[in-house]
């Protein structure tokens, strides 16, 4: 009911395309599936502990390794701790640190990719040489080494993972920037007197946005997997509980057939990764101009 004209003018440039893309996104089934899964997982980990009475730290040797029942919906572990209560709290740090690390890594990657692809020549070669070196070594190895040297610390872990995993994003963004940069409209904008920074932010960046979304979902999956791997072998996120350490700490119990202490954290990881991947696929379909015509992918 506010003034409809004023924002309309300001949003003129984008409003022609954005609603159509938004509608396309909302029509995509994977958007709803992925969104629902992620929302459920977030509610489970962050709101669940508020409503669930059992304390995940309380142990009772008398009830160790109970199978799932009504009093302990996911059973208990070897210390007699409630598996469900632990699973909720244990999800908070992997999710938060995964998102922070992925966002930082994506920002570094986008920056390096834009600068390398836009400036070309020497700057490009040097930056790409650096990303090549990063990409030529298994990413887990430097993270394991640094984490072992620094000791367990959530903040340093998030930083180290972000600083190790940005090159993949940089590669993707750089590749697309190279293509966009050579298009006539960039030359036209430059000729009309725009600065390089303006061209980069206002004209190149919006055109590589769909690649950035894809790069981010890949980055997120990669970050969560690498964090899970390093934590699983004992050198990542420090205690208290998180999904990977729950998995690692309980894995010996499978010999006795107590699957309920290991399956839940494993499935939690899968749900987190699948939901973000689905969301990314939906956004990619919505942003990809080539899918606008006929490409009816499911």
């Amino acid at each position: 009911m506010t003034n409809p004209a004023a924002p309309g003018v300001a949003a003129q440039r984008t409003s022609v395309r954005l609603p159509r893309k938004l509608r396309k996104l909302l029509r995509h089934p994977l958007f709803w599936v992925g969104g629902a899964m992620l929302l459920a997982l977030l509610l489970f980990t962050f709101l669940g502990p508020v409503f669930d009475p059992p304390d995940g730290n309380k142990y009772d040797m008398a009830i160790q390794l109970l199978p799932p029942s009504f009093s302990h919906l996911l059973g208990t572990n070897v210390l007699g701790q409630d598996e469900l209560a632990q699973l909720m709290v244990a999800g908070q740090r992997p999710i938060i640190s995964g998102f922070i690390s992925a966002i930082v890594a994506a920002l570094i990657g986008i920056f390096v990719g834009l600068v390398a692809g836009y400036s070309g020549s020497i700057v490009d070669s040097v930056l790409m040489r650096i990303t090549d070196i990063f990409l030529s070594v298994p990413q887990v190895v430097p993270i394991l080494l640094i984490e072992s040297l620094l000791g367990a610390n959530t903040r340093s872990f998030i930083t180290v993972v972000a600083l190790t995993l940005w090159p993949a994003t940089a590669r993707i963004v750089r590749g697309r920037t190279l293509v966009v940069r050579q298009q006539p409209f960039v030359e036209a904008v430059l000729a009309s007197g725009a600065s390089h920074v303006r061209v980069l932010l206002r004209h190149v960046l919006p055109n590589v946005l769909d690649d950035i979304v894809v790069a981010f979902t890949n980055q997120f999956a990669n970050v969560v997997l690498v964090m899970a791997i390093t934590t699983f072998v004992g050198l990542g996120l420090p205690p208290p509980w998180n999904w990977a350490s729950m998995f690692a700490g309980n894995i010996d119990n499978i010999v006795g057939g107590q699957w309920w202490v290991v399956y839940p954290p494993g499935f939690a990881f899968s749900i987190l990764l699948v939901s973000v991947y689905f969301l990314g696929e939906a956004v990619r379909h919505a942003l990809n101009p080539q899918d606008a015509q006929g490409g009816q992918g499911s």
Partner: protein
Amino acid sequence: MTRYVVRRVLEAAFTLFVVSFATFLLLKAMPYNLAALSAGPRATPEMVVQLAHEMGLDKPLPLQFLFWLRQTLSTGAALAATYAPPSLELLGLGSVVAALCAFAIAYVQAKRPNSLFDRGMSLITFVLFTFPSFWVGFVLIFIFGIQLLWLPAAGPNLDPSSQGFSNWTLGMILPVATLALTTIATWTTYFRGAIEEALRSDYIRTARAKGLPENQVIVVHVLRNALLPAITIAGLSLPTLFNNVIVIEWIFGMPGLGSSLVLALTQFNYGVAVDLVVVIGAVTILGSLLADLLYAAADPRIHFV
């Protein structure tokens, strides 16, 4: 060809040099006394000074690096001789199995897009893509090693001759399957793109138009042309594969570069750990080099400049 090979070899050598220099700098940047760390918690101060001298830590930084590099290369070579073969067996078998499966799936998907097989496989690879390798490994161990008791739950140990070839093969099945399953998803997507592109190309139409039998069209033209991007992808994903090799060795209790690295790091045995870091770097860099050279040898269109 020679110039291209020389250039790629020099590039790989430079990368390896940078990786080892970065490892060295990383160690120096840490707020620890390297000699004290290597000597262990119960060493006397005299022993630490003695060790620091033996490690060349009392010399200027560039000399220290050379000293460190020389030592790392000799001890690293010994470590590699013992622990690289099992890791490479796992890596090699896993990627071959993954490549064959991914190629087969991608081929059927490309031939029959939007079929039931295509959609089902897309969903399965979707889900596999997002499974951590230790989770896949665990599920396999639980089903085949513990519930069904069909296969050994642990991988083969260091010396294949001591356990016989059949035991070694049985032990390798689950680790190789884990590595393959975690890799198939990504590779199928790439291979499918390559095969679809080959199927669409003009030379396929020409081959069909001149009356070649369909089998020959597929094998000689489609698959051979799709093989080239496949080699590139395999080379590029080598470091990612090795990430999974580390976990798989750890979860299956197999000796190898990865499990030794984790063991050394969790026990704060940095002498061994750093050697292993450099060896793993060398293995992946050499692997990528090999993939590039193979590509160059297989593709007649590459001009060697």
